């Protein structure tokens, strides 16, 4: 058999390291010298962005999830519960592996579902889990909540540095799934499954694995969230907002990309804070909602898509002149 020429190998890493550096620099500078208020906001952004990246990785294979909150909550709870027995690192490892296993099983069970059927089932799953957490109160603490280990004694700056590092980890995973062949394979699975099958792409395996990876990343975000504040209750850890926001952020920033969710997360949070300043804490959601609707209608490819189009137009003009 003749050896086949491989098109990509590590090329993707060479292309993306700049974005990791930018995130590291911006996040790092903010963590060290930023105003405490902005440090707090950025913490929220990193966690939401990891969640949105997890949503996007899954969505690339056509699996539009409305249940990221499920794995977010599982991550928060499993690390908190296991901490007593396994210590910090052990509880994180085992907790996230547990979430991945649940995600793989759940992904396997949902294989036959598509589109809105898939979405509503994932949503139902994320709504059922807080009930489970309430019922299993001897383990989970029930409605009274549970206290996970707090990182760096609650030092927000060090926590932000840690979150930034995990965000870069999520970006690397996302970029790995975006390398040429996997991107094309995911696109075929999403839009032309028959063609994917008859090109030899392991459709079923790829779908389940992406579900597992996506679940693992969502659990990582949940574990980080628990570790920031040191206190979680079911309605907080499994809050449906953790399902809706990643969806909105990815659409706002631009799907099928790593930078899209990050841009979306930053823009959404800044928008929220600015409108809160201008309008006050009651009416601001209306404005934020309206802006999101406008953005998504006017920019179907998200902010990243718009930026790319602008860059393309500019280079065309440059070449002409």
């Amino acid at each position, binding site marked *: *058999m*003749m*050896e*086949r*020429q491989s*098109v990509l190998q590590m090329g993707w890493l060479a292309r993306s390291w700049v974005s990791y550096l930018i995130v590291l620099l911006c996040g790092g500078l903010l963590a060290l010298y930023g105003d405490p208020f902005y440090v707090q906001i950025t913490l929220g952004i990193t966690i939401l962005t990891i969640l949105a990246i997890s949503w996007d990785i899954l969505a690339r294979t056509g699996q539009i999830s409305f249940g990221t909150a499920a794995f977010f909550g599982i991550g928060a709870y499993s690390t908190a519960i296991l901490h007593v027995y396994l210590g910090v690192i052990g509880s994180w490892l085992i907790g996230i592996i547990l979430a991945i296993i649940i995600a793989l099983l759940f992904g396997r069970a949902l294989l036959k579902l598509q589109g809105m059927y898939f979405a509503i089932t994932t949503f139902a799953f994320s709504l059922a889990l807080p009930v489970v957490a309430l019922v299993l109160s001897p383990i989970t603490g029930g409605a009274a909540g549970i206290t996970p280990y707090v990182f760096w004694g609650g030092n927000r700056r060090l926590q932000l540095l840690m979150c930034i590092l995990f965000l870069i980890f999520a970006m690397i995973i996302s970029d790995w799934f975006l390398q*040429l*062949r996997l991107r*094309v*394979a995911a*696109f*075929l699975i999403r*839009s*032309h499954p*028959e*063609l*994917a*099958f*008859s*090109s*030899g*792409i*392991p*459709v*079923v395996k790829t779908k389940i694995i992406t579900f597992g990876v996506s679940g693992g990343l969502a659990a990582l975000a949940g574990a980080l969230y628990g570790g920031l504040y040191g206190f979680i209750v079911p309605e907080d850890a499994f809050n449906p907002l953790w399902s809706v926001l990643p969806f909105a952020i990815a659409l706002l920033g631009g799907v099928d990309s790593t930078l899209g969710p990050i841009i979306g997360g930053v823009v959404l949070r800044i928008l929220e804070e600015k409108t809160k300043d201008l309008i006050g804490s009651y009416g601001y959601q209306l404005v934020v909602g309206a802006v999101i609707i406008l953005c998504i209608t006017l920019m179907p490819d998200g902010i990243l898509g718009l930026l790319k189009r602008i860059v393309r137009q500019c280079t065309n003009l440059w070449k002409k002149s």
Partner: protein
Amino acid sequence: MEEELVIQNVSVHFGGLKALDNISITCPPKKIIGLIGPNGAGKTTLVSAITGFATLASGEISFRGKKLSGLSPNLITKCGIARTFQIPIIPKKLNVREILDTAMAYTEHHAKGIGFASPEGVASFCRMTQLLDTECRSLNLPQLKRLELARVLACGPRIILIDEVMAGLGIQDTQDTLVLLQEIYKLSVGILVIEHVMSVITTLCDYVFVMSNGKLLTEGVPKEVLRSPEVQKVYLGEDISFDDI
């Protein structure tokens, strides 16, 4: 003679419709085999059954002694059976290189004769080198049909199942496709052709199976089969023969 593709008592039902009704076919290896029959005879369903897209109600399909029934379509492609689609499935956003490269990456290289190590190799064999970086949205029908052939070749197949790859093509494009199929055959890749153009069947095929209503009507050498009264009856009605047209 070594038996390559064996279809034994296969039935496929779509609700109450028996699309394939207890059909048995044994394809000899290394031949160009024709599969003909009037519309609705079950030709495409047979291709779908072989490639794992249609669930068998009964029967068994095996390829070089390996049981295929129950395997998922991507594994069957990997075994060396690649199919084209009657209506080309077009991923508009992707370009030719990406489609060929992906098909190559996920399959194994079975055919001895084909030294395709890269999308460029397949493309130049199919005479579409200049189209490599073209997005599918700007390909025309003959080019799309050509791309389907290139894609199955990129899968490194032992046998390719060609579903009406010449339908809708002009005379010159049909002629080009015929030449290309013969070149593929010379690379010792088996070919199963579904075709309505009888002149293609007679010039191309060594052997032909005729299907009607989900059953095998007859089989044999093309010229003889097309003369047989029962084949002419299912195609044309009682009183006309192919010689009259």
